[in-house]
């Protein structure tokens, strides 16, 4: 099994720790994503796997081979660079064939394999063109072909879609997934775009300041964030800091630290149980909250609060509401499942009910005064 293993991989630049003791095992054939903001260390980590940087400490293994000290041209790893780095003085055919020519593969074999790759990336018509004559999306396909023709064990992709516009990005994302399925090798995808990572990855790792904030399946990371950073970096969320005032078998009740008026009940069946008097942070995704002029009929299943609409932002597929509840601000997404022609839409300063299931919140065993939602949301509210 040719798994990729990172063991205590660290990279220090003078006093700055770019990558802090990373341990990770990526199974052969996985489509794995490193997700994080600029400067979090994800690109440095990728470059260490590719061989352009050497780890200050730690080792990198592919299967049983320690590749940590090998130069890039001796590693069974290929990279798709952010600006593709195609060779401007060679046509497409020779760009793709480069890796094989360097290994002195026989001419007829090169011919066959290049044609195969061109078919894979659907660029057969452009064989004799030069990179300058191609569009961004086309150049990227050539970069992929040029890398994959060498049959690497791991393919590294460094923000490959960053230079493309939205529609093309969506299209290429699907293409990449198809190519991955066709080829079956491990893909490592670095990005700062969380929707890309959620779409494409089998598993992902959220990076922050050189270490992992969380590693897991996309829906685990999204619905069950383990750190405050993970919760708010991927998608939007409402963070409520609270103290645990009651602990029962499958339930816990917390009371908001800033607003002792509101008690929130949480179903902890699939959760780690908090202890009494613990101070924790709740993450509540905006799309989980229902917003309405009337309270729900079955009151027992929901946590219900009342508030006033402070801001409305129309977004096509959904509308975002900022609702002030006591001294909290909640962000709510209401999906437009239908076009409600007969009902009057909600307006500024309307009093509304917000409610959500007690299974919809997630407890994070961490508190961070800087990240508590209300203050952040307050800054974004427009005064009508």
């Amino acid at each position, binding site marked *: 099994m040719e798994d990729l293993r990172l063991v205590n991989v660290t990279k*220090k*630049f*003078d006093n700055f720790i770019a990558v802090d003791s990373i341990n990770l095992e990526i199974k052969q054939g996985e489509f794995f994503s490193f997700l994080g903001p600029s400067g979090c260390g994800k690109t440095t980590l990728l470059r260490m796997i590719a061989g352009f940087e*050497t780890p*200050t400490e730690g080792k990198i293994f592919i299967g049983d081979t320690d590749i940590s*000290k090998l130069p890039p041209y001796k590693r069974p790893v290929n990279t798709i660079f952010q600006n593709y780095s195609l060779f401007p003085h060679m046509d497409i055919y020779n760009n793709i064939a480069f890796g094989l020519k360097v290994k002195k593969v026989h001419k007829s074999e090169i011919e066959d394999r290049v044609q195969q790759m061109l078919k894979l990336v659907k660029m057969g018509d452009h064989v004799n063109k030069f990179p300058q004559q191609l569009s961004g999306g086309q150049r990227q396909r050539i970069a992929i072909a040029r890398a994959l023709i060498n049959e690497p064990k791991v393919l590294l992709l460094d923000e490959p879609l960053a230079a493309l516009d939205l529609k093309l990005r969506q299209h290429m994302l699907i293409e990449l997934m198809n190519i991955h399925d066709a080829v079956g090798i491990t893909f490592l995808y670095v990005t700062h775009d969380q929707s890309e990572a959620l779409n494409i990855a089998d598993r992902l790792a959220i990076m922050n300041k050189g270490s992992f904030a969380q590693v897991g399946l996309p829906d685990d990371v999204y619905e069950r964030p383990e750190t405050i950073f993970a919760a708010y970096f991927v998608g939007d969320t409402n963070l409520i800091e609270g103290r645990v005032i009651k602990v029962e078998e499958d339930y816990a009740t917390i009371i908001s630290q800033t607003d002792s008026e509101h008690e929130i009940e949480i179903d902890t069946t699939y959760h780690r149980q908090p202890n009494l008097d613990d101070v924790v942070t709740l993450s509540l995704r905006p799309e989980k909250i229902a917003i309405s002029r009337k309270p729900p009929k079955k009151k027992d299943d929901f946590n219900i609060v009342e508030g006033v609409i402070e801001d409305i932002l129309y977004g096509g597929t959904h509308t975002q509401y900022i609702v002030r509840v006591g001294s909290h601000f909640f962000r709510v997404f209401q999906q437009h499942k239908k076009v409600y022609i007969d009902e009057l839409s909600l307006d500024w300063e309307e009093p509304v009910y917000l409610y959500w299931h007690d299974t919809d919140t997630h407890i994070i065993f961490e508190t961070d005064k800087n990240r508590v939602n209300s203050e952040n949301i307050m800054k974004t509210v427009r005064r009508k």
Partner: protein
Amino acid sequence: MERFTDNEVAKIEKENRSSWFLTTPFLIWITFFFLIPYLIVIFYSVLTPGVYDIKFVFSLESWSSAFSATYLDSITHSLVMSLLTTIITILIGFPVAYVIANASKKRQNLYLILIIIPFWTNFIIRIFSWKIFLSSQGLLNNLLIYFGLIDEPLTLLRTNGAVLLVMVYVYLPYMILPIYSVLEKFNYSLLEASMDLGANEIKSFFKVTLPLSLEGIFAGSILVFIPALGTYIIPQLVGHQSSAFVGQLITFKVKSIPRNWPLASALSFILLILVAVLLLTGYNYYKNISRSKS
């Protein structure tokens, strides 16, 4: 200052070693055929001249001769003529560069080529052609007589005027090109902004265009003044024997019999110092200007 891992320090040292390896051939060459020869020149300046070969006897006579009236006059003459040449090439070159830079992109290339083509022909030939043009039986005199402007041919050759004319002719492209390259990069939106704010076109020119083009004028001046200082062939072919340039004197002392290599060396060294001083003051002036510019 970045600190690196041991692995990286090793990589950098390897890079440095290969840099040394690559630049050493050039360094050896330039030491033997450029730096050391200059030292030999200085060395020779304190020896004794012989009719053919130099005599290895210490003497400071060449230095005292070098500072005598004849030679100081020549040095002054060279400085003055070079300065005049520089000024005239600026006065002519700037408008020309301006005109080219303002033309459309296509035209610019055409204009540049037209300016440069004469430059690609051998410069001795170009000087020679002026000799023909200006001679007493040459075309200029013929035309002037034909149009009745003069009765007898003018003696245009073998004058300081002729030397100045030919110097300007030869060195003009060296002034036009640097000014053009600065003007060409010129950001026209700055000009528009200035005009927008009320200054008319003439004012904008003086307040915006001119200061920014100083860089080009400066570069051009270096490329004109310094070669002009050391010129030999121009005054030799079209100038008068009585007002010799320092380049001519050096050449006579090296090539013609009787030779006086120590004197030639002393004069060369003086020329070298002049050039060095000019470059350093120019460089400091330039640094001060760019500091106040930003």
